[in-house]
């Protein structure tokens, strides 16, 4: 357990002007934990861009909010549940989904989409397979029952995640501007109402568990993991949205990390008020709970509401209809204090603002080079033939189809999903408007391990390119920063460099960060994960038939927008080819020219929205060769000519999109307008993918063969090792 340091304890004494009691120490410990207070990252997070004319609500609330026009808005955010998912994969992941969903509907928005970014150790280890299966079942269990479509995500395998799987869940909701609610305890004398599930002993100290490293004793922390009830969450959702419509609610916040403690002091702090509650009134499912346990419980599916005095009954009526507890447990006061009573007796008394906002701020040392797990210079390279290399990469766990995973998620419920899992970006329409939301979730720790700053920029660029490839304009972002122990300067340096890269790229692509999450101490037995930032970026587009990846017809021109790039060995060491075929890692991530990238994105948006192409797919993992193979997924293949061998085929240079078109002149005209290359590289044809270089055939494979390699690879890896 990460307890308060001596310095922090002194600060507590200074705030209280007395010795804290046991309950107060516990309250400070969770609120000032890394998980709740961002004490190691806050000074750096402040450098991120957070504003644009579309941003209605930026960081600091439960979720960021973006204006999408027509009086409508979207709320979205990403959050991690890494530590619980390692200890108890099913419940850890399930409650991760539950937690982020509450963050969305506590703002008044109805959740309409979820995406997951997952990281595991390699599947040849039984424990990693067990964690993967548990996490996927947990997400499936919770999201499906709740009734939110899980529309996309990504799953990556690296050995640095052996003892530290990452489960980052992104959720997005929609609502009208006048339906936005905030977590603020305003109105002196207003009742503070507890709603939802009863409080039990589960999850006590979850937040502080998430703020420490793992060791051999970690399995004993299973009781710290919460247990989720998606049916209860569904009831809570409907009841909250219905209660908000009564007009009797002035503020609302979910009880997530640090439970009742966090929701009371944050609501008071935001409003500049005090909150007084009596724990004897809190609905409890266990007997004999102490004030300490009630304040720190992380039991799921609970909310705290501040209602207009005298209108409580309107709130109670709605919750009664949905069969949920709703009890007044206290009131808003004018003295700025969090005053906790138990049967009338004061058990804790702490100023809200100091507790919520005055957590220690650390500028941890980072004046060293970020830790790099690989050499800069390329080892002697002996490239393998393109054809077997392509098949191997297609069947590798990072690149292969993740159908086995996403088929367990309901991705069509709510009938808004225009593009579900497996595409460049997911697309969900907003029925009440002509607008659809495109969203992309992406990370690449391999790139970030080689250069945190450049890797972070590449991730932002990739997300924006994903959105542009389906014709959407990227407008805002959320980020999840997963790192090791920030008290180690070489890890802190990774974090600082990554945030700098994200800031630079998000500023450049005009996608302000509206909120997010930091997960530190992802280390087991002293081994840290690679720097693993995950970006979730959303874009806006007019609702219409979605652009998809597969070639649609024979005899169409295949074009590479953005050109072949200029590959070299130093920028090749982070590619899937280096990982899968050579089993090596070195050098730098692919080189990114942000100006060029932006022009390519503008061009592809114009091309796609203008209807000039039949298919579009952006290049990423595995480069041109893998992108071509993925474009063959619909049964139509292609014959293409490339200007080189392995480097040209498999380098992962950004700023490139593969399209098929019946009107190549139109594509060329738009490319010229935007000053980007558009190369005619071949023609679509029946049933085969052939790649030639100078009349030497590098790849000649039946489309069905490519499909086989990709499609069942994950399932096979899970099965063959059983």
């Amino acid at each position: 357990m990460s307890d308060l340091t001596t310095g922090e304890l002194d600060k507590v004494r200074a705030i209280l002007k007395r010795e804290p009691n046991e309950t107060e120490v516990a309250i400070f410990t969770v609120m000032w934990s890394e998980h709740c207070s961002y004490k190691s990252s806050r000074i750096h997070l402040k450098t991120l861009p957070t504003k644009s004319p579309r941003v209605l609500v930026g960081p600091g609330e439960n979720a960021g909010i973006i204006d999408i026009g027509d009086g409508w808005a979207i709320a979205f955010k990403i959050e991690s549940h890494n530590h619980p998912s390692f200890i108890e994969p099913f419940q850890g992941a399930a409650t991760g989904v539950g937690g982020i969903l509450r963050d969305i509907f506590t703002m008044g928005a109805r959740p309409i989409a979820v995406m997951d970014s997952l990281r595991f150790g390699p599947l040849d280890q039984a424990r990693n397979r067990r964690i993967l299966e548990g996490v996927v079942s947990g997400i499936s269990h919770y999201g499906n029952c709740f009734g939110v479509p899980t529309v996309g995500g990504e799953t990556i395998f690296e050995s640095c995640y052996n003892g530290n799987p990452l489960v980052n869940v992104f959720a997005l909701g929609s609502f009208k501007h006048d339906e936005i609610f905030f977590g603020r305890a305003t109105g002196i004398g207003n009742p503070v109402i507890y709603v939802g599930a009863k409080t039990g002993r589960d999850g006590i100290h979850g937040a502080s568990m998430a703020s420490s490293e793992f060791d051999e004793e970690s399995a004993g922390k299973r009781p710290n993991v919460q247990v989720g009830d998606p049916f209860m969450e569904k009831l809570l959702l409907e009841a909250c949205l219905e209660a908000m419509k009564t007009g009797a609610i002035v503020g609302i916040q979910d009880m997530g990390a640090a439970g009742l403690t966090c929701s009371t002091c944050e609501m008071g702090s935001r409003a500049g008020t005090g909150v007084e509650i009596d724990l004897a009134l809190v609905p409890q499912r266990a007997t004999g709970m102490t004030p300490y346990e009630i304040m720190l419980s992380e039991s799921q599916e609970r909310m705290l509401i501040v209602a207009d005095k005298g209108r409580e009954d309107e709130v109670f009526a709605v919750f009664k209809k949905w069969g949920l507890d709703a009890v007044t447990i206290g009131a808003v006061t004018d003295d700025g204090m969090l005053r906790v009573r138990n049967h009338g007796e004061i058990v804790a008394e702490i100023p809200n603002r100091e507790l919520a906002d005055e957590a220690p701020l650390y500028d941890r040392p980072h004046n060293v080079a970020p830790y790099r797990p690989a050499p800069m210079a390329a080892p002697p390279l002996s490239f393998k033939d393109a054809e077997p290399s392509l098949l191997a990469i297609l069947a590798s766990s990072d690149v292969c189809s993740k159908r086995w995973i996403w088929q367990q998620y309901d991705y069509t419920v709510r009938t808004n999903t225009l593009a579900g899992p497996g595409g460049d970006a997911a697309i969900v329409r907003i029925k009440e408007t002509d607008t659809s939301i495109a969203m992309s979730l992406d990370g690449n720790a391999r790139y970030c391990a080689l250069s945190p700053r450049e890797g972070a920029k590449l991730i932002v660029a990739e997300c924006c390119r994903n959105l542009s490839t389906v014709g959407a304009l990227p407008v805002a972002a959320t980020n999840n920063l997963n790192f090791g122990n920030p008290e180690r300067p070489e890890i802190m340096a990774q974090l600082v460099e990554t945030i700098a890269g994200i800031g630079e790229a998000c500023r450049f692509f005009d996608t302000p960060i509206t909120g997010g999450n930091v997960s530190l101490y992802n280390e087991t037995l002293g081994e840290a994960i690679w720097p693993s930032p995950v970006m979730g970026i959303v874009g806006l587009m007019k609702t219409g038939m979605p652009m998809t990846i597969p070639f649609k017809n024979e005899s169409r021109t295949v074009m590479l927008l953005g050109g072949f790039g200029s590959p070299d060995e130093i920028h090749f060491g982070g590619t899937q080819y280096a990982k899968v075929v050579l089993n090596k890692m070195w050098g730098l991530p692919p080189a990114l020219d942000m100006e060029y990238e932006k022009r390519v994105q503008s061009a592809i948006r114009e091309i796609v929205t203008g209807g000039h192409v039949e298919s579009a797919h952006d290049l990423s993992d595995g480069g041109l060769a893998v992108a071509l193979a993925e474009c063959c997924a619909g049964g139509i293949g292609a014959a293409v000519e490339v200007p080189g061998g392995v480097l040209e085929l498999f380098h992962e240079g950004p700023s490139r999109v593969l399209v098929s078109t019946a009107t190549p002149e139109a594509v060329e005209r738009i490319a010229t307008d935007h000053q980007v290359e558009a190369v005619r590289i071949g023609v679509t044809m029946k049933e085969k993918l052939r790649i030639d270089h100078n009349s030497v055939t590098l790849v000649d494979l039946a489309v069905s063969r490519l499909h086989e390699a990709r499609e069942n690879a994950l399932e096979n890896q899970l099965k063959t090792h059983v």
Partner: protein
Amino acid sequence: MPPSSFDLVNWNFPMKIGVVVFPGSNCDHDAWYAFSHTLGQQAEFIWHDSPSLGQVDAVVLPGGFAYGDYLRCGAIAKFSPVMAAVRKFAAEGGPVLGICNGFQILVESGLLPGALLKNRGLKFVCREVTLRVETSGQLLRMPVAHGEGCYFAEDRTLDQLEAEGRVVLRYVDNPNGSLRDIAGICNEARNVMGMMPHPERADEALLGSTDGLVILKSLLASVVGQTLSPAGVSNE
């Protein structure tokens, strides 16, 4: 008086479709949207503790997890007040369509025979499937999304269902291990139908298929005297 030869195109006034809402229903709005928005009918919600259905022409039991379904899908829903009303409505010949969880509830309530077990693969499955309409041979594409959709009944019941032409829909590519590929069945009087796939998720080209309209329109057709079976209603 229902017209003797049914023609949806000339059916001018909207029908009232009651969509039952259990606390854990999560496809209620989708069904409501398909009937009211896509098909231009008058759909309305009926709360689960309502002892009466009001004046409706047909009832839809939508998908979801009625009361959490932690025990067995539909096992608690069958005791709800609204199901007593649905039983009465069905007994009087009123058309009832159960989709996914709605099918599970109809089976648990004894309005349809058999049971829906955990999928053969033991995992939730969400994907598009191809269905064959047994009476016409027409093929329809629409999504399934369920964890317990494996249709099971003893051989005698299966034989009887087939002999009486009550297997309405079969999977061409069985996603869940359902016996004899059964995706949807109806009762003896042919006014109660249950199916695991989601026709309300295949009602617009934007969603990838409009084949679900064949099923939804057959419910409308049944209101005016035709049997509840997709056969004979074309998807124009």
